[in-house]
């Protein structure tokens, strides 16, 4: 059974717990949590991740900046990114995907939808 390392980037502890709760249903999942973009970059420099799941509105460094930085970093540019945000307007979705995110989920999230997206990404990867 393969191990999957997920990086959950969220400033809200409630959402971090809810997303982690959902991801734990994927066999072999290991979850690392980060409070914001800077915290996520620190964790990316020390560990390898299969998928990054990030919020947009966060203090210090927001999710869009994080997506842009990851995509411009040769060491991490191929890591799939899922944006999970309250910003549900079509233009926000387009902006997130244009920056290089692989999927865009608007809150409130449904566990089944999140798992479908993540499993699709993991399936595509393997």
């Amino acid at each position: 059974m393969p191990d999957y390392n997920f990086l959950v980037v969220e400033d809200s502890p409630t959402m971090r717990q809810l997303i982690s709760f959902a991801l734990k249903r994927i066999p072999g999942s290991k979850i690392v949590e980060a409070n914001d973009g800077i915290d996520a970059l620190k964790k990316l420099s020390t560990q390898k991740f299969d998928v990054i799941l990030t919020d947009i509105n966060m203090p210090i460094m927001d999710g869009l900046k994080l997506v842009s930085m990851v995509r411009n970093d040769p060491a991490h540019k191929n890591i799939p990114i899922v944006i999970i945000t309250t910003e549900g307007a079509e233009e926000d979705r387009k902006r997130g995907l244009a920056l290089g995110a692989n999927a865009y989920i608007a809150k409130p999230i449904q566990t089944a939808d999140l798992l479908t997206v993540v499993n699709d990404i993991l399936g595509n990867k393997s």
Partner: protein
Amino acid sequence: MDKETGTISKKVEEFLQVFKKGEEFTQELLKENEKLRYRLAQQEEGSKFTGRDENFKLHTVEERIKFLEEENKNLLDRFRQVEEENKDFANRYVEVEAENNNLANLYVASYQLHSTLDFTESLKIILEIVMNLIGAEEFSIMMLDEKTNELTIVAQEGMGPEARASIKMGDGIIGKVAKSGEAFYREGDPTNLKGADYTHPLVSIPLKIKEHVIGVIVIYKLLVQKQAFSNVDYELFSMLAGHAATALFSSKLYSQSERKLTTIQSFLDLLKEK
């Protein structure tokens, strides 16, 4: 004369021979006839048996067809039954998944609400739940001041400056919710809004400890992607009514007791110095 006699006896001889041959031929014909009759009888008998066989075979095949048709019908019935069961299982799976999702939301919300004794943090957690788990865009938490009998906004998200900072107990929808302890849900499409109406909220939930109202959560507008309230939203509302109230009440008491403890400690320190 002798010559004539000899000719006659020769002819008689010839005739006898012809007659004998005729007799032999007749005998042969009779035998052949007998044989043919026998064969004909055999054939007739044979064809009689073959007819019975054919009938028997036809009957067996008909029986087999009947049996197979019956079996086919049974298999089709079973197939339909299994398909129906499959559909039931699929529906049940979707229901269980939805229930699982609801329970996860409720568990996380409840866990987070009781994870702190800090009043400000408790407020922040309630805001997170209402925004991220329910999908509200403009909403507030109002606490009741029992001295002035007024509800005052202690935390809010996305609200404009025209929102009233405080409301008298019993005034308008929000005041009535606080007075009656009954939740208010506006009828109609919650997304059909021309900007938030701060006098007509979408939802107003009383924060109650038993029957005692200590505040209200008021939602004025939902996120653009939120189409309607689902079952889990109503579960979350009723969970918030009780758990958010106790979380806020206990964290407020804890903060007050901490403050009192610090004051008493300072007072004791002063006494010791003297």
